[in-house]
């Protein structure tokens, strides 16, 4: 189990800050009408993305879902190309054709967000099988939400990964809701992690807002997968601060519940405090990080805004290989 160096911890904190800053910027650009379509922000869930990816090498892969900005950034996908993609520009990771729900960056092992709930899990089994058959040693971690565990694809993928001992980690971000559906009403188990029993694999529930706990737990699962001992189901409890997508009055949950999570369980504030107590961080250093983040994001926005739109003749490009 790696003991993270101060530098690594600072990097984790920075990534969490960058994710939140990215999402806040995207939200603003959306309100200003510079981003269209829809988006699913992960503000409040920064620790799951960063903690999980901290346990992965660059060669390891992730599959993501509709709420994927944080996963991408944590896996090393750059905010410039992401921002450009959200603005539908040619310089975006998908050349402006994918948008928020389809950002992918295979060079860093980011196999892509997905607009279909739970679709990343079956795809992940395939990537893991390729790793196994080609002896490439990489592990595949699939991010998905609590609500997606009621899809048949979740069941079939976990079973397949289990019987084939695929090098995988199934990482469930349980943010208590699937869109408007409270997970308490959508499943009859106390913890999503109990579902691991149906596949004879380990299942564990952790605090998804404690980035180090997330990293530690994921590391164990990754080690297990790499040893060829098969997949693990991790349930990380967290909370989505914003609405499900652009238009959500959040009638299905209380303002008090939201307040509690924001005030008392903010993954960034928590980690910041922890690092200050560990004397790894100072307020000055934190201010520097904020400055750097704002600069990085400002550059990303400028890059995106100055980038050209894809030309019309690219409409039918890249359909077939």
């Amino acid at each position, binding site marked *: 189990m790696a003991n993270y160096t101060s530098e690594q911890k600072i990097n984790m904190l920075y990534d969490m800050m960058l994710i939140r800053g990215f999402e806040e910027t995207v939200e603003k650009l959306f309100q200003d009408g510079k981003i269209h379509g829809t988006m699913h922000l992960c503000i409040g869930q920064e620790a799951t993305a960063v903690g999980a990816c901290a346990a992965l090498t660059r060669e390891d892969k992730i599959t993501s879902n509709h709420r994927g900005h944080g996963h991408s950034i944590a896996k090393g996908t750059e905010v410039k190309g992401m921002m450009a993609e959200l603005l539908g520009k040619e310089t975006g990771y998908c050349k402006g054709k994918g948008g928020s*729900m*389809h950002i992918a960056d295979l060079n860093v092992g980011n196999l892509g967000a997905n*607009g*279909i709930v739970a679709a990343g899990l079956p795809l992940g089994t395939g990537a893991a099988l390729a790793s196994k058959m080609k002896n490439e040693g990489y592990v595949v971690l699939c991010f998905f939400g609590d609500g*997606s565990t*009621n899809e*048949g694809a979740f069941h079939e993928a976990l079973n397949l990964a289990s019987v084939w001992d695929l090098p995988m980690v199934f990482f469930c971000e349980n943010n208590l809701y699937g869109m408007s559906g409270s997970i308490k009403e959508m499943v009859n188990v106390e913890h999503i992690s109990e579902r691991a029993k149906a596949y004879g694999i380990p299942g564990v529930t952790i605090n998804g807002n404690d980035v180090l706990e997330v990293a530690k737990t994921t590391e164990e699962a990754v080690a297990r997968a790499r040893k060829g001992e098969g997949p693990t189901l991790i349930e990380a409890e967290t909370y989505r601060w914003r609405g499900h997508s652009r238009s959500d009055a959040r*009638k299905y949950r209380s303002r008090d519940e939201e307040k509690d999570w924001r005030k008392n369980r903010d993954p960034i504030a928590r980690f910041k405090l922890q690092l200050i107590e560990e004397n790894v961080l100072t307020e000055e250093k934190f201010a520097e990080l904020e400055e750097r983040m704002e600069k990085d994001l400002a550059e990303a926005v400028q890059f995106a805004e100055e980038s050209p739109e894809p030309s019309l003749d690219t409409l*039918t490009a890249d359909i077939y290989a």
Partner: protein
Amino acid sequence: MMVREITYADAIREAMSQRMRADDDVFILGEDIGIYGGAFGVTNGMIEEFGPERVRITPISEAAISGCAVGAAMMGMRPILEIQFSDFVMIAMDNIVNQAAKMRYMFGGKAQVPTVIRLPGGSGAGFAAQHSQSLEAWMAHVPGLIVVQPSNAYDAKGLMKTAINNNNPVLFYEHKLLYNSKGDVPEEEYEIPLGVAEVKREGTDLTVVATGVMVHRTLEAAKELEKEGISIEVIDPRTLVPLDTETIIESIKKTNRALVVYEAVERGGYGAEIASMIGESDAFDFLDAPVSRLGGVATPIPYNPKLEKAAVPQVENIIAKVKSVMNK
């Protein structure tokens, strides 16, 4: 009848609510259709009126909830299932095509499946490739299914009542871009029969058969074309299965030219069926030009708005296509 201007979404909601007040067997189920009102607000307020027993919020389980609708229908209920985006119907195909569509036949006529499956489809909202498809052609190819595609609020309300009262599985294709479009709609319940097209506009030079959102774009194009002295007749089939072939054929015998306009990918879309049907009908001998089609480009729907627009027929494309047919 008391008539007001309401939106397409309001019209669908009103039709469902009126049926639910009149018939205890009717209920709705789907993801986020409760206090959230569904992804497009179509079910807003319904759980407040009818309660959670008849407005059933489901887990994210399209295979189970579609099977549940079919099984409940088989046992005498009249479920209305909302599939949040029509693209997610992929996960419900078995229940719709292998079960609902064939059950009555396979059982020798001893069962019926009165269920309505609501499918919000179409592009134009910036949701990209997995949330913007128009795949009604798949369903129209399957015997045992009824396929409805209302283009306006009035038709949406009338066809929804018809669909709910029909004893077969009905695929009800709604269009994202139409939800907020307003139209005059009577307060009272009324039905629009299946298989009856509407001539939206009379013309003499060319008949355009257009579906869904294309009906509106074609009507706009018609105005422009009129200025240039081209008079087109516009027909909205309203229901794809059954299809009102007679109205279409009679119109073409009059105008001697036919163009089918649809949003779905042109290749293999239902417009191909309509065009072939025309070619095989006795309208053939009246044709002064080949039966033509204008459908979507053979591409997944891109995210960038300019590209997205370019992927499906727009008013200017329709105008250009009509002219090219006129010159043939």
